[in-house]
Each structure stands twice: as structure tokens, then as C-alpha cells.
């Protein structure tokens, strides 16, 4: 199965890149063709990935293709494909969501002046993300990691004429870059100590040869990249701003796939990371903090996309908690289900936003959003899945994370996780209730009926598909578990503790109930309890002031601090010294020239004086 598999992998990953080049160079002026190219290529990728997944469903171990790269630079880096279960699963998820979102975008982006550009960037992203999924070495992962960041930057700032959009793109790039630098350094540490960057080698015996401290250090550094890309604490603030991009972009990049790349990397290097319990402890803590902070932010936001963005952060935090707790399957499974329902949430929201032209869900509710039947039903399903309501997919994956947390000796983590479950249910149904049970409906009839045109159909088709997946995916827990179990020798079966299941279920219902009480029931004033405590509200709404701190840091320390110092040093000290030297020389020239114009007798005297000096020099020279 060697060559067909390799060919399928190459097709799956590189076709979108070809589409990107073709669109950029040839079809910028032909939007229809661009879209067809892009969708066609990603469809082929999807088919290839499904075929690969099916082929390898029962395969005993990972399949690896590698070739020497950069050999002549003095580094020994192997690049190629690593088609193991995790990679293929991710490949399929990414290809599927990419395909759906691109189809959806046909409707959403219709008529945009940058339509071709949009599809070009989407293809670029698809290429990078698909390749990332099946990369065989850390360096290769880093390369595509950065390219994913680039496409994210380009897509967030897609509507570049909007200041906030370009600002958000820049912020996203720089903040993830900060994390990536840590990742980059981590790669160096690994390379210099293990001498190898292959994922399988690192997960295998190579890592055990590294000194423990170095291993912990490199794990922490690599985790820095995860923090940046998955918007974890403290680099979390770029993700809400990234919602400035078109909604399909948010659905694809900033919820379902790209931000999940961080978690994916964690899963990729799970055996490596788990060699360092200290590092795992740090990861657990960061995941927990991120999850809780983001949840609190989501509780007070009025922008529907931002709520989902916060929830993404929090869910990613939850995945990292699960992984860090040793629940490999739990994290990956939640990643899978989350991709489905989060994409669904965004795509549904996108329909509303596109239709009503606002991001404020209070506004949406007032405008009569429940008139759009398919999106309404889909978004409720997705929100329920997010909240962990059985029997939707989110329920199953959350349960497995809870059981992983329950397996830890310290119950604090489980409690935090449960608190997260409660908050999630609360904020997601806050949105639902506000949207669909508004206090007043302004234009009941105007927009209520669903439009019926090709664009709308292109948008709703993916919704239906994703909703189906969300409903059904949970029942595939066992097969997926078995599938993933094929690749790892470590214990995937965390001890089952039933009470955590029940507690999670109860808490999610409680959150839902609280949301109903405050927002849903007839006559509710639709003001959350947090909003009644102004300081807390402000803290949450200002995102725990993280952005202020960063803003101050960049402004005071970097811009007006170091940068100012460097610039002043250049101007005043270095150039000052040089100009002073030059000026001094010219001044010396003036003096020298003046001395040449003195009366002739003084000149004769000078000659004589020099001669006398030279004569004396003869006697003193020997001393």
C-alpha cells in the first residue's frame, strides 16, 4: 500500500496549495472559477483523507514516509508524512470542515470584491493545516504552524479597510508569534539534545535519553507554541479580536481547526510530554486557568461571535486539561466533537449575522432571528452539545474528560472542570434564550421568512450536515477509541468513576436552568447575575484587563522604552559621535586653513620652530 497511500497523502495536502497558486496568479479576476478551484481541490483532499482513514482503520501501526531535507545545510532533518491514527483523524476533520466552510462561503461571501482572494487564502490555509496534520517532524510541524498563522492573519484582516480588522490580524499574528518563538526554541533544545525531530522518535526511545530537566524545559517551550496558537492563558486575548474576520473564517480557523492545532500538537507529542510530570502539571494549570477565565468572559459578552470565541478558548482549555490529566483519548475525542459543533455554532451565527447584519445577539433576538428555522434548530443542537447535554456528541467527550480529571489525585482539577461545565451551559444557553425568547420582537414579519436562494441553500446545507454529525458522533466513541488505541501503548482507559458523569450532567442541567431562569422564562429581565455586580462585570467584560496590560507593555516598555532608547542611541550617541567627529574634522580643517593664512613671518617662524623641534628630537629620541 506504499505508493497509493503516499500519492493520496500528497494529493490531500498539496492540491489546495496548487489551487492557491493558481488563484493568486491567474484567476484573481474570475471569482467563480476561483471558488470552484478551491472547493474542488479541498473536496479531493477530503475524499483522499476519507479513503486513507478507511484504509488505515485497522492498520496496526503508523505509516511513515520520509526523505532527507536540508541535508546539505549541515542539519539532519527528515521530512515527510506520518500517517498514523491521530494524524489521519485530524486530516479528515480538517478536510471535512474546510470543505463545508468553503461551500458555506459561496453564500456568505457572495459578491464580496475580494472573493477570489478569500478563496486563495482559504486554500492556503487548507494546505497548511492539512499538511500540519500529517507532518512527521517537529520542524515540519513548525513550518506549517507558521503558515497556518499566516493564513489566519490574512483572513482575519480580510476586510483590511476596517481598522479593527487589520489591527486584530496583526495582534493575532504577533501574539501567536510570541508563543511560536518559544516553540522554536523548544525545537532547538530538542534538536540539540535528542538530535532528532521526528515525532515518532520523540515519542519513542529518543526522548528517554534526554536529561529530565532538558526534557521538561523543551516540553514547556513547545507548550508555549500551544499556548499561543490555542489562545491559552496568558496569550488568549487575540482570539476574541480575531472575530473581526468573516464568520466562515471564524468557524474554520478560530474555532474548529487552526486553534485546535495547539491541542493537536499536544496530542501528537503526548508520550513525550508525559515523560515530564512537572510539565504536565503546568499544562494542567494553564488549561484550567484558561478555561475558567474564558468562561467568565463569555458570560458577559453581547457579541455572539465573541461568546463562541471565549467558549472556544475555554473548550480548548478543557481539552488541554484532559490531555494533561493523562486522558489522551478524552482530549482528542473532545477535539473531534468540538470541531463539529463549534463549526456549526459559528456557521449558524454566520447565517444570522449575514441575514440581520449585526453581531449583537440581543439585537438578533429583537429582529426575529427565530424565523430562520434550519439555523435556529442547528444552533440549539450545537449549543446543547457544547453544554454537554446528552445524547449529543459534546456530552460524551466531556464525560471522558471529566473521568480523566477524576483520575487525578487532587480533586481540585475535577472541581474546576465541573465548574467549567456549569459555566459553559450557562453562557451558551444565555445566548440561546436571548436570541429565541426575546423580550420584544421589533420586526416580526419583515425578516422572518427564510430566504430561498442559492446562497442561502449553500449556507444551510453544511449546517444540516454538521448538525447530523453533532447528534451522531457521540455514539462513535467506542470505535474511535479503539482506532486511536491502535497507535499508542499507553493506557487509554482512565478509571471510570460514575459520580463524575452524574455530577457533570447535573451541573450542565443546572447551568441551563440558571440561564432559563435569568433569560428564558417569560418575563425574565435578561440580565445575568454577573451584570448585577458591576466590578465583576467590568472585570469580565474587560477580559481581566489582560489587553490593557499588554497594551501598556507594548506602548511603555517596547515602543517608548527599548525602541525609543535604541533610536535615541542611534541618533544621539552613535550618529552624534560620528557627526561630532566629522564636524570636529571640518572644524580642524578651518583652524588648519586659518593657520596657513597668517602673516608670512609667522610662517617662517613656524618652519624654524619645527626644525628646532626636529633637532631636539634627535637628542631625545634615544632616551
Amino acid at each position, binding site marked *: 500500500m506504499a505508493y497509493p497511500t503516499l500519492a493520496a497523502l500528497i494529493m490531500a495536502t498539496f492540491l489546495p496549495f496548487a489551487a492557491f497558486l493558481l488563484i493568486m496568479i491567474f484567476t484573481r479576476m474570475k471569482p467563480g472559477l476561483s471558488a470552484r478551484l478551491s472547493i474542488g481541490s479541498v473536496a479531493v483532499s477530503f475524499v483522499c483523507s476519507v479513503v486513507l482513514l478507511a484504509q488505515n482503520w485497522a492498520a496496526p501501526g503508523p505509516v511513515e514516509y520520509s526523505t532527507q531535507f536540508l541535508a546539505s*545545510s*549541515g542539519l539532519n532533518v527528515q521530512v515527510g508524512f506520518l500517517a498514523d491514527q491521530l494524524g489521519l483523524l485530524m486530516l479528515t476533520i480538517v478536510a471535512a470542515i474546510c470543505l463545508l466552510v468553503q461551500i458555506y462561503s459561496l453564500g456568505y461571501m457572495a459578491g464580496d470584491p475580494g472573493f477570489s482572494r478569500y478563496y486563495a487564502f482559504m486554500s492556503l490555509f487548507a494546505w497548511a493545516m492539512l499538511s500540519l496534520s500529517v507532518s512527521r517532524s517537529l520542524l515540519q510541524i513548525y513550518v*506549517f504552524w507558521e*503558515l497556518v498563522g499566516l493564513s489566519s492573519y490574512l483572513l482575519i484582516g480580510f476586510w483590511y479597510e476596517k481598522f479593527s480588522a487589520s489591527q486584530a490580524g496583526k495582534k493575532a499574528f504577533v501574539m501567536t508569534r510570541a508563543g511560536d518563538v518559544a516553540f522554536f526554541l523548544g525545537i532547538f533544545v530538542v534538536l540539540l539534545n535528542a538530535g532528532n525531530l521526528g515525532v515518532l522518535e520523540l515519542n519513542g526511545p529518543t526522548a528517554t535519553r534526554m536529561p529530565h530537566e532538558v526534557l521538561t524545559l523543551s516540553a514547556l517551550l513547545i507548550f508555549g507554541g500551544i499556548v499561543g496558537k490555542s489562545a491559552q492563558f496568558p496569550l488568549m486575548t487575540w482570539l476574541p479580536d480575531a472575530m473581526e474576520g468573516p464568520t466562515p473564517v471564524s468557524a474554520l480557523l478560530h474555532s474548529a481547526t487552526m486553534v485546535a492545532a495547539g491541542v493537536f500538537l499536544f496530542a501528537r507529542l503526548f508520550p513525550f510530554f508525559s515523560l515530564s510530570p512537572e510539565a504536565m502539571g503546568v499544562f494542567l494549570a494553564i488549561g484550567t486557568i484558561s478555561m475558567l477565565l474564558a468562561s467568565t468572559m463569555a458570560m458577559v459578552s453581547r457579541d455572539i461571535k465573541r461568546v463562541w470565541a471565549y467558549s472556544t478558548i475555554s473548550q480548548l482549555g478543557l481539552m488541554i486539561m484532559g490531555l494533561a490529566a493523562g486522558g489522551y483519548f478524552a482530549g482528542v475525542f473532545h477535539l473531534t466533537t468540538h470541531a463539529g459543533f463549534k463549526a456549526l455554532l459559528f456557521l449558524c451565527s454566520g447565517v444570522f449575522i449575514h441575514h440581520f447584519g449585526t453581531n449583537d445577539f440581543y439585537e438578533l433576538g429583537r429582529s426575529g432571528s427565530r424565523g430562520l428555522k434550519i439555523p435556529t434548530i442547528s444552533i440549539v443542537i450545537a449549543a446543547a452539545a457544547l453544554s454537554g447535554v446528552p445524547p449529543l456528541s459534546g456530552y460524551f467527550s466531556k464525560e471522558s474528560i471529566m473521568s480523566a480529571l477524576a483520575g487525578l489525585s487532587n480533586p481540585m482539577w475535577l472541581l474546576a472542570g465541573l465548574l467549567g461545565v456549569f459555566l459553559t451551559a450557562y453562557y451558551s444557553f444565555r445566548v440561546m434564550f436571548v436570541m429565541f425568547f426575546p423580550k420584544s420582537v421589533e420586526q416580526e414579519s419583515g425578516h422572518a421568512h427564510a430566504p430561498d436562494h442559492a446562497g442561502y441553500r449553500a449556507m444551510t446545507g453544511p449546517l444540516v450536515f454538521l448538525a447530523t454529525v453533532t447528534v451522531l458522533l457521540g455514539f462513535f466513541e467506542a470505535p474511535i477509541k479503539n482506532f486511536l488505541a491502535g497507535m499508542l501503548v499507553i493506557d487509554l482507559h482512565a478509571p471510570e468513576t460514575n459520580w463524575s458523569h452524574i455530577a457533570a450532567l447535573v451541573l450542565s442541567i443546572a447551568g441551563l436552568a440558571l440561564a432559563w431562569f435569568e433569560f428564558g422564562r417569560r418575563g425574565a429581565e435578561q440580565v445575568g447575575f454577573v451584570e448585577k455586580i458591576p466590578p465583576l462585570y467590568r472585570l469580565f467584560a474587560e477580559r481581566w484587563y489582560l489587553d490593557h496590560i499588554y497594551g501598556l507593555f507594548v506602548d511603555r516598555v517596547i515602543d517608548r522604552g527599548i525602541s*525609543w532608547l535604541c533610536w535615541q542611541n542611534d541618533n544621539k550617541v552613535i550618529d552624534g559621535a560620528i557627526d561630532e567627529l566629522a564636524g570636529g574634522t571640518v572644524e580642524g580643517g578651518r583652524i588648519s586653513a586659518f593657520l596657513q593664512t597668517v602673516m608670512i613671518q609667522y610662517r617662517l617662524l613656524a618652519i624654524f620652530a619645527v626644525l628646532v623641534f626636529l633637532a631636539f628630537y634627535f637628542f631625545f629620541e634615544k632616551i
Partner: protein
Amino acid sequence: MHMEPANFPYLSAILGTTVAGLIAIMLIPAEKKELIRRVSATFSGITLVISLLLFFAYDRSMGGFQFVEDYSWIPSLGIRYINGVDGFSLPNLLLTGIVFFTGVLTMWEMETRVKEFYALYFLLVTGVFGLFMSLDLFFIFVWYDVSLFPMYLLIAVWGTTRKEYGAMKLTLYLLAGSALILPAVIFLYFKSGLGTFGFVPLMQSGMSGTIAPWEQKFAFILLFLGFGILAGVWPFHTWSPVGHAAAPHAVSMVHAGVLMKIGSFGVLRVAIMLCPVGWSYWAPLMAVLAAIGIIYGAFAGLRQTDLKYVIGYSSVSHMGVVGLGLSTMTVEGLNGAVFQMFAHGIMTALLFSSIGYIYDRTHTKMVPELGGLSRVMPVASTFFIVAALASMGLPGLANFWGELVVFIAAFRTYPPLGVIAVLALVVTALFMLRVVQRTFYGPVDEKFSKLQDVSFFLGVPRMILAAVLVIVGLYPSILFDVIHTASAPFINGLPK
């Protein structure tokens, strides 16, 4: 060192073409501007073709110096006209060919004193080509100066911001560097006792220790400072932003793209390869200066509002990467450094070329006065953005590989400096993105809304440069294969 004689004098053909172009331009009456442009494009195109041929004709399995031409020149001093290329000079020759040709096309719309401009430009490039291919220290010095002094007029006549100040500063600064080089070169000539300025015999006597350690240390620091000034080594970098900002576009391209490479190439070819002992003695200093340059250039660039100043400071930072690579004394370091020279050359050339287009249209290169250009001239903006991304070290574009390899080498040799250098990536990203945002994004200014996007013809030079960035970015081995043939034997042959 293996020396493979040439069956066809490719190298002299390159020099001959530029000189012939120079003479042809001088003979055309100044009024026939279009003809002058065409002649310039033709001759520069020929050099590009020859350098491409050369690049692919070079036998990578054999390595060493190839296409060697050797003629007696001044026998009484042991000066010979020796040309030859190895893995270090080959990428630089190609770089020069590319930047030379695209520079001619970039200046196509310039109307003032066309004849003189192209004549001086050809003279400048002749020097650059000569320096990269010469294997005789006398000629290296001659070409070094030939490539510098036309800069004065090129900047002072056709430049923009503070042009006379910039031109004077740059010329004096750089020639001050040559004031250190010449004595050191002659010093080595005598200390080797060989009575030759030939590079290869001198290198062997440096390797074998015929040139005593203290002599190597002394000569090395002179040569390093002398060439380093041109390479923008901190703290001798301040001519670079001023000079870039003042120079006309094609000259900025050649200057940042190629001339700064002459500096780093000189450090490598003359200082390092002739004085290996001096190298190992001064390497820590080199590394520290380079690391400071990397981070300092990035921070200083953050505050700039003139597009060319931004690029000037980013050049300081990037050339710091080259310096860091050269200071590691490893195969990887040298590989990465030479690769980075090439990548940075193409990247800055593209940046300056794009800025040139923007400036020609908007008549400003101040960031606050620009904005929203992406709407008006999407293609021109794309070129700039591609180059900006490359300068941020984005994978898939050429610079990444150079930086990666250098950083790894640095991380191995000087871990703290390696960390500092890597951290600068964030700052570079910050200031490049700021510039991109403020220049190309945001609402369109009313006065720019009527501007034309870059036409196909004017887009050609930028397309070439962008394509090179992408090709090398996707297939870096095309360069590394070549560079490695020079770096590995050199490092392995170092005295222990």
C-alpha cells in the same frame, strides 16, 4: 583547495558584459533615453543569464573553486588576475545578477539624467561582480572600492531624503572601512612570506599557521571591522538606514541587496578564511555584536515612520543574523549565513522595489501619509507584503531557512545569544506588520484613489524577486547544496 580551470571564461564574460554595457551606455547620446534603458536591460539580462548558467553548471559533487581563470597581472608584487567561484560566492553572484537586472527594470520610469545613472549603476555592479569572483586580494580590494564610490553620485543626484547628507555619510563611512582593509591585506601579504596576493595560497598559509596567531588576530580585527562596516555590524550600522532612505530605489536595492553582502562576504572570504586563528579568537565578539545588532535593529525599526528607514533597520537586524552565523564557527553557521545573505538580498530588493513603485506614484514614503494602498494597488501591495513576510522569517519563504540554520548553530555555540536572536523575531513581526497595516490597510486616502496598479511590465522585476523568494523558500536545498560544498571542507580543514 581544488581549483578547476574554466573551459569557457564565464566569469570574465560577466565582467566583460557589464563593462561593455557601461561603454555602450557612454556612447549613446543622452537624449535617447529609451535606447539607453533597453541597452541596459539587455546587458544586465545577459549577465543574469550567464550567472544562472554558472549556478547550474557548477559541479556540486566536486566542490572547490571552479571556472578558474588565472593570468599574471603585476608579477613584481605577485598580483594575479584570478577569478573563480566556490560555494560561497556562487549564490552571491546569482543574487547580484538577479538584483542587477531587476534594478534596471525598477528604474524604468526614471527620467532624469538617465545615461549617467545607468553608467554609474553598471560601474557599481561591475565592482560587485568582480569582488564576488576574484581570488586575489588586490583585486578584491579594487573591486570593493569600485563598488562603493559610484554610490556617492548615485545617491546625491538621484536620491531623495537628505540625499547629500546620506550620500556623504555613506561614502565616507564605507571608505573608512576600506582604510582598515588595505593595511591588513598588505600585512598578510608580507606575513605569509609567499609574495603573492593570491587568495588560495594565503589561505593555506593561514590554515597551516605560517601566519602566526597574533598576526592573524591583528589582521582579523582590522578586516572584520573594515568589511563589517559595510555589512552593517552594530554599532557601525548608522549609515545604513540613512543611506537606504536617501538612495534611489534601484540603488537601495543593490545597496541593501548586494552591497551589504559584500561586507559579510568580505568578512567570510577575507577575514575568516585567511585568518582562522583570528576568527576563533574574535568569534565571541562577533557573536555579541551580531546579536546586539539583531535585537537592536528590530527595536530601532519599530519607531520609524519612513518606509525606507524601516527596511534599513530591518536590514541591520537581518545582517546581524548573517554575522551570528559567521561567528559560530560551524558548518551550519556558515551555511545559514551565506543562505541568509542570498535570501536577505532578494527580500530587501523586493521591498525597495515595491517601495519604489509606491513612492513613484504617491510621492511619499512616510508611513503616516500612506494608507489603504491595498485597495488601490493590490498587486504592488502583494509584492511588498510577500517581502515583509519573508523578512519576518515566515516558513515557505527563503529567509526562514537561513535564519533557522543560523539560529540552530548559534543556539549550539552561544545559547544565550541564540535566544536573544530568536526573540527578535517577535519584534520584527511587530514592526513589519505595523508598517503593512498602516501602509496598505485601512481606508483609502482620497488623493490616492486614482492611482494605477502596477502594470505587467513593471511587475516583472517584482515578480522575479517574489518568485525567487518562494522557490528558494520551498526548495532551500538548491542553495544549501552549493554552499555546503564550500563550508564543509573549510570547517573540516580548520587547524585544531
